[in-house]
């Protein structure tokens, strides 16, 4: 399992980046949702991941990517919802303001981009590990 540990670690990294993209997609899909008067509008979700175990000695003994100990949580960010003046809207409150979801499109697009770069980096790591193993198989060949 020693030379395969790199694949497990890269898979865990790719898993996290994929989830970040999913969370950003969820936020972007809810950009123009509104809430009726009195209810809270959609709050942007953030993915909070914390590695539980930083013991490098043990990190390479893992049997599967699902066992890579990490605390991954979805946290709703506390933000004041955007108020847009639109008295004719069915969800307008008494003052004529509609509460839209407080999502920053630029931030979400930036997190999608960075998640893609990190995913590519993990794929490069996995490919490099595979190339290393294939090269090792060439030892003593052709002679």
């Amino acid at each position, binding site marked *: 399992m*020693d030379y*395969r540990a790199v*694949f497990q670690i*890269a*898979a865990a990294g*790719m*898993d996290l980046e*994929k989830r970040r993209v999913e969370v950003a997609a969820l936020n972007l899909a809810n950009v123009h949702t509104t809430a009726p008067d009195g209810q809270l509008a959609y709050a942007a979700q953030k993915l909070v991941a914390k590695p539980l175990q930083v013991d*490098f*000695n043990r990190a*390479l003994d893992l049997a599967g*990517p699902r066992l890579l100990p990490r605390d991954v949580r979805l946290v709703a960010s506390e933000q004041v919802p955007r108020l847009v003046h639109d008295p004719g809207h069915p969800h307008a409150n008494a003052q004529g303001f509609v509460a839209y979801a407080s999502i920053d499109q630029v931030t979400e697009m930036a997190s999608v981009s960075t998640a893609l770069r990190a995913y590519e980096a993990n*794929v490069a790591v*996995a490919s490099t590990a*595979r190339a290393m*193993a*294939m090269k090792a*198989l060439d030892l*003593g*060949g052709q002679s």
Partner: protein
Amino acid sequence: MSLQAIQAIDLRAFPATAPAGAASAAPGFAHWVSRELSSLNQQLGVAEQGLQRLASGTATNLHEVMLELEQARLAMQVASQVRSRVLEAYQDVMRMQV
């Protein structure tokens, strides 16, 4: 940058590449080969299960299936290289003039 992380890797944890001694070399190697073959079989089974999950649409992660396929292919290459080396060594021995 501290080198403690690198020193923490216990080199004894990695399997020894050379067999222990001439007397115990043959049974040790045969045992290793049979273990590797069963591990290869397991690896191929895992890859096939991943493909089935992908075909039926129940796969959650595409990269997991791809990594399983790559590991199965790598294990297959290792097994075939081991076979080649063992055959070469055997042929070298058989070519010795009596």
